[in-house]
């Protein structure tokens, strides 16, 4: 179980005077369910990039347990992310031409981590997210089905952390509700930390904690009792 601690995080982009993300301290406990909200340009995407190691922090620290992502070289950050983070994105990022089953397994296969156990888990996850035809090509699926395949892929390696960046933004409300429910349910079953970046109130509402960003800074950090 990995707690997150951000310290003195300041992300600046060339040409901008103010940092796009400025967080002196933020802690998220293992297993916590956190919603990150904020208007466009508030720094949500940068927040996701920093906590997942997609972007290397030049100023400050992003620690998951003992690992400071700011100090890891790119290759090790990729490996660490593959092993510890399940990432769900707004645009699904599935690979056309491959079946749902192959899409779920692709990152693990490329990382040489697709053993027999994972193959069985991929099938089980597809059943759990309601995809009956595992060999169906993803480009022939509805958007809701695609996102459910993406959720299954994110959870294949039983990650300690699940990060979902606007997972329901491209879905209709029914499909969005199903995906939101799945994320909560699967994170709970794994005991994973769930961080959801979203505008969708129906997705944000069930979260135990809500962090609001505004102009790169934490404007509010509320916990439900």
């Amino acid at each position, binding site marked *: 179980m990995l707690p997150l601690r951000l310290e003195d995080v300041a992300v600046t982009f060339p040409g901008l005077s103010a940092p796009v993300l400025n967080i002196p301290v933020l802690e998220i406990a293992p297993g916590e369910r956190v919603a990150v909200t904020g208007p466009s340009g508030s720094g949500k995407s940068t927040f996701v*990039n920093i906590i*997942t190691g*997609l*972007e*290397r922090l030049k100023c400050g620290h992003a620690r998951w347990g003992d690992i400071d992502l700011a100090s890891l070289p*790119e*290759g090790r950050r*990729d*490996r660490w*992310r*593959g*092993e510890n*983070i399940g*990432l769900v*994105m707004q*645009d699904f*990022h599935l*690979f*056309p*031409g*491959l079946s749902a089953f*192959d899409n779920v397994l*692709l*990152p*693990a*296969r*490329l*990382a040489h981590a697709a053993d027999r156990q994972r193959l069985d888990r991929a099938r089980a996850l597809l059943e759990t997210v309601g995809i009956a035809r595992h060999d169906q090509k993803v480009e022939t699926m509805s958007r809701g089905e695609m996102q459910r395949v993406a959720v299954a*892929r*994110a959870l294949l*390696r039983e990650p300690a952390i699940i990060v979902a960046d606007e997972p329901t933004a491209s879905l209709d409300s029914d499909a969005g509700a199903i995906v939101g429910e799945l994320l909560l349910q699967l994170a709970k079953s794994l005991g994973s930390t769930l961080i959801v970046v979203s505008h969708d109130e129906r997705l944000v509402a069930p979260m135990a904690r809500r962090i609001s960003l505004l102009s790169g800074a934490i404007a509010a950090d509320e916990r439900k009792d």
Partner: protein
Amino acid sequence: MFRFIFSDLKRLWAGSAVIVLLIALATALGVTITLQERALRLGSARASEKFDLVIGAPGSETQLVLSSVFLQPSDLPLMDGDLLPELNADPRVAWAAPIGFGDSYAGYPIVGTTTALINATVPGFAEGEIFVHEGDAVIGSAVDLAVGSEIKPMHGAAETGGHTHTELAYHVTGRAEPTGTPWDRAILVPIQAVWHIHGLGAGDHHDEEGADHDDEADHDHGPDNHASEEHDEHDGHHHEGAAASAPIDEHWHHGETPGLPAILVKPKSISDAYRLRQDYREADGTVAVFPAEVLTRLYATLGDARQVLTAIAIGAQVLIAAALMLVTVIHVSQRRREIGALRAFGAPRSAVFAIVWLELFSLVGLGIAIGYGAGFIAARMISQSIMAERGVNMPVGFAGSDIASALVLLAVAALLAALPAFLAYRQPPAAALKG
């Protein structure tokens, strides 16, 4: 990984097919030039290997070889016929045989020669036997006639206004085994018959025809030089020396042998060959050549042309490689998000490099393989066409150097494919995901 690459190529099949086709065409161009040039060298070398030393009248050495070895129609000047008995009496000569051209039948050249030359140059007879009478003829393996056929020779060729000789009809007595040379498309007859049919040689009425013969002795019986003068001659009288049933006589005597365009000489030893060449090169009224040596000089000239063609082929390959680099770099930049996603989901950078490299290299490798196959087939088709038209067997085949060239080509392709792969490898995932 391979499944991903395969599905990617399948999805982008049209673009992939165009890339493979372009590479295949560029490769095939170079391969065809290389194989064809080699086939030409091998084929012509094989065609001339039985022709140790050729003696003719002074003139173009290349033309002498092309006419005598490759039976290319031309106006060869004639040399003194006494040379034939002189050579046959020379202790350095195993045998010397005249080669007389000028007549044809159905597009096949009729060559007057001797049994010695036929026995020495053909591996045997597929049917029948060698000529024994003046009116007998032996056909090459590629002549579309049957043993037993009658042949009415035409002076020159039909397309150059030749006329049919009425003095003699040859009777085909045998078909030679294939030699892979232009002689497979030739009709071989006794030289004696050729002389007689043209009113030359021993036994003819020299007193009556002396004037004509003096004229004729200045030229061979090429297709171009006789149209008008021969008509006059034939209009004026008939040659009566040709007798189909007369036995052939291959004993030559001074003063009785007509002028000859070429004599093939089989020396007894290599040193004899060099001495004979020396003697007849320096003698008045003759030139002596080793066909292989003349062909080597010809190859040197052709080599320049080959270099130009090869340079054009390499230029085409470089242009296509540059175009492909552009296409692949654009392709990789268009797939930034896909590459970024792979990285985001935990695929190692090395896997991303391998995917892009393998995808491109498999297309290039396939193109090169198809190009080699297509180049081979094209060279074979050209060779078969030349074989059918000229009778020269031009063997097309890959050599060790071709494998080395293919490996070099693949190594260059591997390096070029590494560039877009490296670009993909270097892309930070967050930037790539933004597209």
